[in-house]
């Protein structure tokens, strides 16, 4: 299969698997145990923590290991909200991942006011609205670094500055950027940051929340005295070791990889958009993850394209409701003002480490036929009667 769904998840790098392997059986004790076996596990965990800190330019004791991006996001939102204080407003954006969005909405139940700041046609948060909404009652501002569906990058520094002016906490979901582009937590003014291993060639089921010193938050899971008493549960040692190795590799390779993927992605869009009519690029043309291409195909629906691609051994994803088990189209595309039918007709190709030019050219050669076939059976597409449809 030509895998073009790296934003959904990535295969674990073989070097990462190799680094993890000894920690399943040979060095498998509990890092909280005082015997030598436990201490070896402890050292491995702390050394991974140091690598993460190095990559993100933060302190080691600012890193809390979690089970993934979703848990990190939930800790950031619920943890800060439950930690108390007088502020009762949470400001987020309309295009957050559900791990932030649904979590914020859930906090309504606990008396918090939730404000979702709108985005422009490219999916960039409206800083004017943000500026107006963030006030001295605002506890938390959560705006993601890059959107997973469209890849659009947010103006993190500006959001942080507005947040700081009102003494609120700034959280960013950086699940899609960590390991793909440089991040400098202090200079970007980030108070809390979520990341997830499996989005950049690390293992699934492990992530981290970075919390700058001095921030108060309640644990999401209570229990033993792990992770500075802020995240209970026996440490997933192989997972954490794997995450450390993942970061080590990313530090070395991300720049070159970024350039390579941008070229491949642009080749893909170039190839497809010259061959297929009536496409619409979703997301910002430049301020966008180098590996992400999202566009809508007029008159046809996303899942049916995915199935056809799948029959051609190409794996991608769609912002169509039909793939998510709900009737709603992608909240991200709708928030950007994409009409419902075009939102249902969206496709996301997200590229990664194992893609080659040959992969891309295969997609370019196969895709037009798929569109043609599906448009032929679409009641919305009537070229014979109306000629070329326009927007």
């Amino acid at each position, binding site marked *: 299969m030509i895998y073009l769904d790296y934003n959904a998840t990535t295969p674990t790098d073989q070097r990462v698997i190799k680094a993890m392997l000894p920690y399943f059986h040979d060095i498998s004790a509990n890092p909280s145990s005082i015997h030598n076996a436990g201490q070896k596990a402890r050292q491995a965990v702390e050394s991974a923590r140091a690598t993460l800190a190095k990559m993100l330019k933060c302190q080691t004791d600012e890193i809390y290991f979690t089970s993934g991006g979703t848990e990190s996001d939930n800790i950031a939102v619920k943890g800060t909200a439950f930690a108390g204080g007088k502020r009762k407003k949470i400001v987020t954006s309309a295009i957050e991942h559900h791990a932030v969005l649904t979590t914020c909405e859930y906090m309504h139940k606990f008396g918090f006011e939730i404000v979702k700041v709108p985005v422009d046609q490219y999916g960039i948060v409206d800083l004017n609205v943000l500026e107006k909404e963030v006030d001295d009652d605002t506890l938390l501002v959560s705006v993601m670094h890059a959107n997973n569906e469209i890849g659009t990058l947010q103006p993190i520094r500006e959001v942080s500055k507005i947040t700081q002016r009102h003494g609120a906490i700034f959280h960013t979901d950086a699940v899609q950027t960590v390991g793909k582009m440089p991040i400098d937590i202090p200079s970007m003014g980030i108070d809390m940051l979520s990341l997830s291993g499996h989005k950049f060639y690390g293992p699934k089921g492990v992530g981290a929340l970075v919390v700058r010193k001095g921030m108060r938050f309640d644990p999401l899971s209570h229990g033993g005295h792990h992770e500075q008493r802020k995240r209970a549960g026996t440490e997933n040692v192989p997972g954490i070791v794997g995450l450390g190795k993942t970061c080590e590799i990313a530090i070395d390779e991300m720049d070159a990889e970024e350039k390579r993927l941008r070229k491949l992605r642009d080749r893909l869009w170039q190839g497809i958009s010259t061959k297929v009519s009536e496409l619409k690029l979703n997301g910002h043309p430049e301020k966008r993850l180098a590996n992400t291409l999202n566009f809508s195909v007029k*008159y046809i*629906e996303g*899942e049916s394209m995915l*199935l056809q691609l799948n029959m051609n051994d190409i794996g991608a994803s769609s912002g169509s409701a*039909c793939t998510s088990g709900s009737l709603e189209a992608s909240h991200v595309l709708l928030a950007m003002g994409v009409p*419902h*039918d075009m939102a249902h007709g969206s496709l996301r190709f997200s590229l990664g480490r194992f893609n080659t030019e040959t992969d891309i050219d295969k997609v370019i050669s196969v895709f037009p036929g798929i569109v043609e076939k599906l448009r032929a059976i*679409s*009641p919305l597409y009537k070229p014979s009667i109306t000629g070329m449809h326009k927007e």
Partner: protein
Amino acid sequence: MQYSQKVMDHFMNPRNVGEMQDADGTGTCGNPVCGDLMTFYVRIEPRTDELEKARICEIRFKTFGCGAAIAVASMASEMAKGKTLSQVIDLSRNDVTDGLDGLPPVKMHCSNLGVQAIHEAIKDYLTKIGRQDLAEKIRGCPKEEH
């Protein structure tokens, strides 16, 4: 999404796709907001109002929608073809789903659209031949698509 082989077969090779310029009845259910839209065209023979006698002798459809929607439309068209209107009115979503060896739970809503749109086409036919009274007794598309 785990589709049965039958679903994949109908999705990849949908039967009776197309339009019909001079259809006896047409029916459309769904809308692009929900991500599914189906239009059916039927030709009736003999063109009588006797539901037990009139048959769907030709049927065509077009679908905007997911794999399940396309397969449902194709399967429904096959099931309706050649049957009397009375038989077609008795067709249910379950008949279509069973014909496809089942659908994933999240896709069950698609299975309704197929028969509904065909029923809508029959209503259209009956209305056109002056039998609103009969047409009204048939449920076509639901008023509100959620």
